[in-house]
Structure formats: C-alpha cells, structure tokens
C-alpha cells in the first residue's frame, strides 16, 4: 500500500511539472489560433471553442492598426535556413571533424583542447565589436557571408568538442586493421573513422543548426533587411515585430512565434537521444 501511495505522488508531481513546461508553449499556440476578440478578453480563455487560422496568413486589423503577418516571415526564414546550413556544414566538415580527429589520434595537446573548450564558453557579446569591424572591412554587411562566418565562431568549437568524444570511442584496432590493408592516414579518416561516427556528426549538425536558427545578437548587428536584398534572419524579424506590435497584434505575433519554434522543436525531438551528450559537451552520455 505504501509503495502505491508514492507511485501516485510521483505521478502527480510529474504531471504538474509537465504542465509547467508545456503551458507557455500551449498558451502561445492557442493565442495564435484565437480571434482577436477571444484574445483580448477577461477572464482569459484557456480552451478556445473554434479554431481560427487567420492569424497565420491574414494581416491583422486590431484596434485599427494593420499588423505584419506570420506568413510574412518566409523571406527571413529563407535567410535563416541558408545561413544555418552553411555555417553548420562548413564548421563540421572543414574544421571540427579533422581537428577533433587530430586531437584524439595525432596532436594530443591538452592546451589546444582547453582552448577549444574555452571558445565554447565565451559569450557572443564579447566579440561583437571586432566581428562588426571585420564585416565592415570585408564589405559583407547584410550578406549571408557575414552571418555564416560569425556563426562559425561558435559552431566550430562546439562540434569539435562533441566529435572528440565520438572519435575517442572508436577502438584503435579498427584503424590499425585499415592501416595494415594499406590505407593512407587520410583514407582511414574519411573512409573508415568518419563514417563510423556518423551519429555524432548528425547530432553535431542538428544541435548547431538549432543554435544558428535561434541566434539573435550577431544577426541584429550585422543585417538590416530581409531576403532577397539582405540577410536578416527570423529572430530579428520576430524581435522587430514584437517591439513594434507587442501591445496589439498578439494573434499574428503568436502565429509567427509558432512558425519560428516549429522547425527547432522537430529537429530537437529527432536529435533527442544526443541532446544530453551534446549540451554537456560530451560529459554525460545519457
């Protein structure tokens, strides 16, 4: 009987915790699905009776002001996607994969490892002035390259650190066998070792894609217009939308918020298995 009681208490506590974590997301979703009449009402409506998708594609006309639309975020989404894909792929395959392999197998420098670790911990704001000055000097302000290059500053050390753990897990005998078969060190790397850690590579790509997609500070200072004329990303779109229309266009804002969080939630759930390992820089393998 005593055991049953604890089981029930644990279940109740878990349901409460889940409610705490899901409610803000739920609230954003229902706000996006409500009409403005249902949004601006007291007491608040927790379960809307009918679903209205207008907030996603219609310009709102709330309190006499015409607002932006959620579907209007598409040009920003194009930029976000391109920048995130390029920054992630370049840092993973050109920098992180060879560097992590070298650190584990060839150059066993603890200091280089420490430096990489420290790079993952430097706040973005620290280097915003130098990065802004470089971008101005290279004349790439408001282009994809401005963001791709600066995003590599945080995606590369993260991927390197994560992949080091995966390379470390490969038994040395596998590579020794390949060596006996006459493969060069470079062939061993990209024909044997790299394919063996594909799950790690995919995890690094997905987690880095999420951080690029969500990045605000660099996009805020380095871009000023949407696709096709500029490279502004979704977080900047949403931020300016919030600042200008936060007192009235709640339906459209919430819909834009749903659009913005959907891709990363889907990717996050796909990569869930590697989330603990990735977010703890490999310290916890959960």
């Amino acid at each position, binding site marked *: 009987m005593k055991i049953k009681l604890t089981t029930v208490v644990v279940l109740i506590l878990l349901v409460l915790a889940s409610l705490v974590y899901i409610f803000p997301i739920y609230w954003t979703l229902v706000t996006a699905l409500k009409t403005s009449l249902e949004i601006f009402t007291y007491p608040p409506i927790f379960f809307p009776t009918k679903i209205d998708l207008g907030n996603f594609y219609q310009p709102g006309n709330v309190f006499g002001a015409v607002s932006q639309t959620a579907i209007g975020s598409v040009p920003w989404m194009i930029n976000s996607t391109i920048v995130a894909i390029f920054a992630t792929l370049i840092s993973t395959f050109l920098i992180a994969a060879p560097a992590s392999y070298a650190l584990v197998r060839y150059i066993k420098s603890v200091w280089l490892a420490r430096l990489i670790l420290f790079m993952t911990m430097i706040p973005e704001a620290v280097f915003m002035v130098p990065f*802004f000055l470089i971008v101005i000097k290279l004349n790439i302000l408001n282009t994809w390259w401005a963001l791709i290059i600066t995003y590599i500053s945080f995606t590369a050390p993260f991927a390197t650190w994560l992949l080091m753990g995966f390379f470390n897990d490969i038994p040395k005998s596998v590579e020794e066998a390949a060596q006996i078969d006459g493969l060069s060190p470079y062939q061993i790397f990209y024909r044997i070792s790299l394919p063996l850690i594909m799950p790690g590579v995919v995890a690094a790509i997905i987690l880095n894609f999420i951080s690029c997609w969500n990045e605000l500070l660099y996009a805020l200072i380095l871009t000023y217009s949407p696709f096709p004329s500029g490279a502004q990303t979704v977080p900047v779109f949403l931020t300016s939308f919030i600042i200008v229309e936060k007192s009235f266009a709640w339906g459209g804002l919430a819909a834009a918020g749903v659009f913005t969080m959907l891709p990363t939630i889907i990717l996050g759930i796909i990569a869930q298995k590697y989330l603990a390992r990735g*977010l703890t820089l490999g310290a916890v393998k959960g």
Partner: protein
Amino acid sequence: MNRTLKVGLVFVLPILVYFLIFFIYPIISLFQNAFTNNAGTFTLANFQFMLRDRVLQISLTNTAYYYIGSLLIEYSLGFIVAVILYNYTGKLTTVFRTIIILPLMVSPVVIGLMWLLLFNQTYGPIDYFLKLLGLPAINWLGNPGWAMPALIIANGWEYSPFVFLIIYAGLQMVPPQLYEAASIDGLNRFQTFRYITLPSIRGPMIIAFLLNSIGILKGFDLVYVLTNGGPGYATYILSFYEYVVGFTYFQTHYAAALAILYLVIVGVFVFAMLKLTGAEKYLGVERIKE
C-alpha cells in the same frame, strides 16, 4: 618531419586558422579599440570611465542578481524534477522527458514572446491565477522591482530543463548493484539517496553547475525581447549594456573596453570553477593524453 606529426598538422590546420580569425584577431582588435579614442591615439580614458560609470555599476549588480536568482531556480527545479522522474516506474518516462526538455528547443526570442503574453497584466493568465488565489495582480514588466524576478522566472523555465537533462542522465548511470548493496545493508530511502545516489552523480552535478552558470552569464536575448533593459535600468545586465553602448550609442571604443571586462569576468569564473571543482576531468580534457 615525422610522418605522424605531419598528418596531424594537416588535420589541425583548419582549426588553427579558426583560432587566428576568431580568437587572436578579435582579442587584438578589442585591445586596440579599448585603449584608443576616436582619433586613434592611445588612452586609458575608457577604463577610467568604467570606475565612475553608474550604469555599469547597475549592470554589474543586476548581472549578479540575475545570475544568482537564475542559478538557484534552475538548479533546484531541474534537480528536483530529475529526481522525481527517476523515481517514476511507469511507461510514460519518454513522454514526460520529452515534454520537460521542450523549452531547450525553443528559440529564446520566442520564449521572450511567450512570457510577454503570459505576464500581461490585463489579459495574461499569470495575473489571472494570482487573482484567483486572492493575491494582488502584479505589473511584472512595468514595475522596476518585479521586472528582474519576471526575467528570472522566464529564464528559469528556459534552462531548468538543461539541469534536469544532465542530472537525469547522470542518475540513470548509477549502477543498480549499488542499490542492491544498500538494501542488503538496510539503508532507508533517505540514506540511500544521501550515501549512494549523491556521490555517484558528483560528476554530472558539477557539469550542470558549470555549464548552467556559463549559460546564464552568456544571456542576452531574453533581456532584449522581454524587458529591453527596462523599466529604466532595472534589467540592464552586462551583455545588454555592452550592446547598447556599442550599437545604440555607437561608442565602439568603450564597448570594446566593456567586452574586455566581460571576457575577464567569464574567464576568471571558468578558470576558478575548473580549478575548484575539477570539472575538466568530467569534461574529458585529460582523455586525449591516453
């Protein structure tokens, strides 16, 4: 040249170039800017100004407040939820785990938007619940005394799942034999937790503390979206102040000096934490020597 070394250098070359562009150059650039004025002549004025900059003092105090408040909420909540889920034996473990870590996948800008809707004084659900409980409604984002707690609550929601994830993963790695031994020795639930579980998850606890601390100190987005530093200077934290100086007032040289201060604070913190807690061992820095 030794063949192994040559191969190693080829592989490591890209990241050396990376350090040149993303570490050495920015550091030089920061010092160059921080120790000069607009005319380009050497000056210590930026650092002298720091000492009498009232807004900087407010920002530093706020950063400490934000850090301690967020860490307390995130660490305790994340830890407790992890222990609760660990004690759950039903079939819904994966469902609960997925729900609890959802905030980690949501963009901080969207989280700012969510909490703008939730904290709204007139139509928001939080004040509605407060009134249901017979408590006075709070002007969360407009009142200088409540803006920081509001920010800490939103940040706590965002990052407590991070602590949860680490601690929960750590708990699952505790060998079951230890619990069998404990029950043979007649330890009760509390004693088992105190003498078996806690020592076994020392590593994950330290990692959670270190990485959560760094995550909080990096914070910028939530402040920018939710309060924009306001009301007044009530939620100015160091990263936000540096941004305002650099990109609202365009005082690049002073912003560079602030960035150096920021880097030193984070650097000293990281160094002290690594030394005091031995976190490097858990992060696996030493494993490459094997």
